[in-house]
């Protein structure tokens, strides 16, 4: 599901005379192209004046006085409650906040103490639920972990002090446990206050805190993970059901940091200046040339009698009939983030 939220104009925007060109109408967000609008003769201009985009939820949070105003609570009621109900059923949930630096992601995810955002509210919801777990005493266990991905390196934001410099954690896969971050500390929490404390501690440890790197929070992703284990009865036998909630505060899109965008391939047709990215260019080439078709994959069988062997279909979409496999191997260049969140 995708939700969009509109924030009020910032001080700078108001000072510069910025206008709000976004409009929300039910589940549709509309953006007005001012340039098209201001032309004297709009005839014959094929560009759209208003572009509309559909979402699962649209939140108008521009003016608190507005009857349409979507407060932190409103957002929580929709998205947060869904997370909670999914978790109760044993699903893993992942909640991403995406947008440019300054677009309000942290406000929505964390929020100021006066009006907390999704993360604290979801935690609160879990604790309330725990009180309601009547079946067994201490039937729910909640652990949290908090990591940061910066420059493709993973750091534990809740590492007990002792290490002067935060070192890099390795991301691995375990057959039983799936992908995990080796050495990431998990902290048991029993009440809401503890969670907030850990959150604040983690935030203070983020790379922004390092003085010589500016606006770094715009370049690092932070993932706050809640491990929720419930004791349940399955076939009348006590069993455990574990779910994970990943709350991801994504880095601001690269354009916000000018020095950053020179080093990475961005969307569109930008050419990369440095040969450092030759590997990425080659990887992309190889990846694009992959086919999943039957021309390289096979489906042979020894048949007997009247029954025909099973063969690749005319549309040729699968290999051996089994769920598809690739015909070539592209050495891993992807970001740590996508790999880590594979399981939810």
């Amino acid at each position, binding site marked *: 599901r995708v939700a969009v939220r509109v924030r009020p104009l910032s001080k700078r925007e108001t000072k510069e005379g910025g206008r709000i060109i976004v409009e929300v109408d039910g589940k549709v967000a509309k953006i007005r192209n001012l340039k098209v609008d201001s032309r004297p003769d709009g005839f014959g201009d094929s560009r759209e004046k208003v572009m509309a985009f559909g979402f699962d939820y649209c939140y108008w949070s521009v003016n608190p006085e507005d009857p349409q105003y979507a407060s932190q609570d409103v957002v929580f009621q929709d998205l947060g409650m869904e997370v909670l109900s999914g978790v109760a059923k044993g699903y893993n949930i992942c909640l991403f906040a995406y947008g440019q630096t300054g677009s309000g992601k942290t406000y929505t995810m964390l929020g100021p103490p006066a009006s907390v955002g999704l993360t604290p509210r979801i935690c609160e919801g879990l604790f309330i639920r725990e009180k309601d777990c009547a079946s067994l005493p201490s039937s729910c266990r909640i652990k949290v972990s908090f990591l940061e991905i910066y420059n493709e390196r993973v750091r534990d934001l809740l590492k007990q002090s002792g290490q002067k410099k935060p070192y890099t954690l390795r991301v691995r896969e*375990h057959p039983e446990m799936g992908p995990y971050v080796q050495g990431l500390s998990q902290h048991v929490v029993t009440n809401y206050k503890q969670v907030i404390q850990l959150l604040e501690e983690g935030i203070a440890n983020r790379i922004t805190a390092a003085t010589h790197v500016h606006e770094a929070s715009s370049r690092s992703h932070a993932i706050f993970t809640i491990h929720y284990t419930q004791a349940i009865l399955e076939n009348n036998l006590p069993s455990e059901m574990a779910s994970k909630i990943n709350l991801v505060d994504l880095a601001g899109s690269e354009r916000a940091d000018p020095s950053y965008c020179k080093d990475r391939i961005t969307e569109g047709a930008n*050419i990369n200046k440095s*040969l450092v990215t030759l*590997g990425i260019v080659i990887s992309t080439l190889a990846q694009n040339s992959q086919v999943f078709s039957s021309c390289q994959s096979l489906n042979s069988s020894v048949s007997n009698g009247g029954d025909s062997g099973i063969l690749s279909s005319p549309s040729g979409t699968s290999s*051996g*009939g089994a769920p598809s496999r690739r*015909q070539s*191997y592209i050495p*891993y260049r992807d970001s740590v983030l996508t790999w880590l969140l594979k*399981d939810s």
Partner: protein
Amino acid sequence: MANVPWAEVCEKFQAALTLSRVELQKNPEKEPYKSKYSARALLEEVKALLGPAPEDEDERPEAEDGPGAGDHALGLPAEVVEPEGPVAQRAVRLAVIEFHLGVNHIDTEELSAGEEHLVKCLRLLRRYRLSHDCISLYIQAQNNLGILWSEREEIETAQAYLESSEALYTQYMKEVGCPPLDPTERFLPEEEKLTEQERSKRFEKVYTHNLYYLAQVYQHLEMFEKAAHYCHSTLKRQLEHNAYHPIEWAINAATLSQFYINKLCFMEARHCLSAANVIFGQTGKISATEDTPEAEGEVPELYHQRKGEIARCWIKYCLTLMQNAQLSMQTEFCPGWSAGVQWCDRSCNLCIPGSKDSPASASQDNIGELDLDKQSELRALRKKELDEEESIRKKAVQFGTGELCDAISAVEEKVSYLRPLDFEEARELFLLGQHYVFEAKEFFQIDGYVTDHIEVVQDHSALFKVLAFFETDMERRCKMHKRRIAMLEPLTVDLNPQYYLLVNRQIQFEIAHAYYDMMDLKVAIADRLRDPDSHIVKKINNLNKSALKYYQLFLDSLRDPNKVFPEHIGEDVLRPAMLAKFRVARLYGKIITADPKKELENLATSLEHYKFIVDYCEKHPEAAQEIEVELELSKEMVSLLPTKMERFRTKMALT
């Protein structure tokens, strides 16, 4: 000219350059471009000191450059014109300043201004662009314009600039050749001028980047072969000019080989992989370059990882080559059959035309088997391929010269790039692939790299499977399938089904199919014996049971948490799910039992599954498209089986 305080000019210019190179992070937080703006100011001062630009002589019509030169903006110059005399010299100096101003504006995201300066630079240099003094700067200015236009998403314009640079370089090397002046030397005192060697190095670097930018442009234009060719050239040049990091280079070459594999260009793929091996082996001998390794402990880790990755690229080479051979030599399925036609009245050379009563199925017996006719055809073709080899090799981009070239050839010689035509040739590739499987597994161990490890094992299984195709002896083929099962089965035990759903399904399906193939082989073997004994019957039934088990596991994995089979099967698992059902149906029909009651039960179950397929496809027409063949056969069985079962019941009642 005498008024120009040359020393001051140089000083300011150098200061400007130094400022330009200040890292953005070193600037105050709210003013990331401060150093750039300071540099810009200095450059403007230098520009003022140099005086006004010479009259725009180049605004005059093209006739200036020679008759019929066809010299439009980006065309090639007709001749080399050296910038001699004070006017020309001033033009060139100004051009350098304009260039740096252009780059400066681009760095501060002021593209229009940047473009203006760069175009001005080009205009000033235009007459002299093929000269020793100016060519490097001209090409660099064009390249930067190319990059600029790419940011505006006008990729064709970018292409034009970059191709022009490329052509200019080629022309220069042909007509002039000596290493040109590097633009930075313009404002350096005589003593500090660069050596020929250094000039050459820098100029070649510019051209290498030119090729790299073109590779990217071609990729965006979806001219993939060309893009690959340019990537290939870039890699080649990195080697030639000793400007590479062995591990990085090797993995890039190995990745490029995958592109070639996907395009079935095995000679090129082999070359890339062999080069990757050789260069990778140089690690440790070459000192750190521009890409300095990160942390102390990380270098060895990366080394082993890359080694494993290169091994995996090799595995794919062997596998794809063998599979490609199989594809060209296997008996095809007759399309007439798939339309549900019981006999083939098409003039296909596969089917023996039959009639309604004796369908042409006899010829379908060998579907997927090695077709001897095709094999001989390919053998005849082989000679031609070998003859053409030299000419193809000459056209291809070859890495390295001299010693390096020999080292690479040494690796290449041990591997064939031609499709294997018989068991012996296939076995060679198999053994090589297997060698790399072991190497890959050294790094990609299951604890830590589950997905990768499993993919390697799947490749290993696939190697056996394709080798089995070439094996003529049925017992030995059985053994190969048995090996596959032995390596795949343990994987399903430890895996968490929640995290590794897709992979689990793939493995289950593959194991089931391996058992299925083994069963069919045993049946074929039994058919050839005069007296199939109870031992082999038991074996066949056991294999049948195992195949059923795994198909059932696979199908069960599609159920929801409440164990209900989905009403609507997802698109990504639709075909495999249908196939699984089909094979389950067939398997039940093939259980050998002496007990008539059991037999009837089995037939009933078989019918049930065939029915499911027919019913599902009726409700979901998109499914019908996925399994045309199986659907036809299922419909057939749904109509035939009840009659068969009835006859059975009657027979039972009578005894």
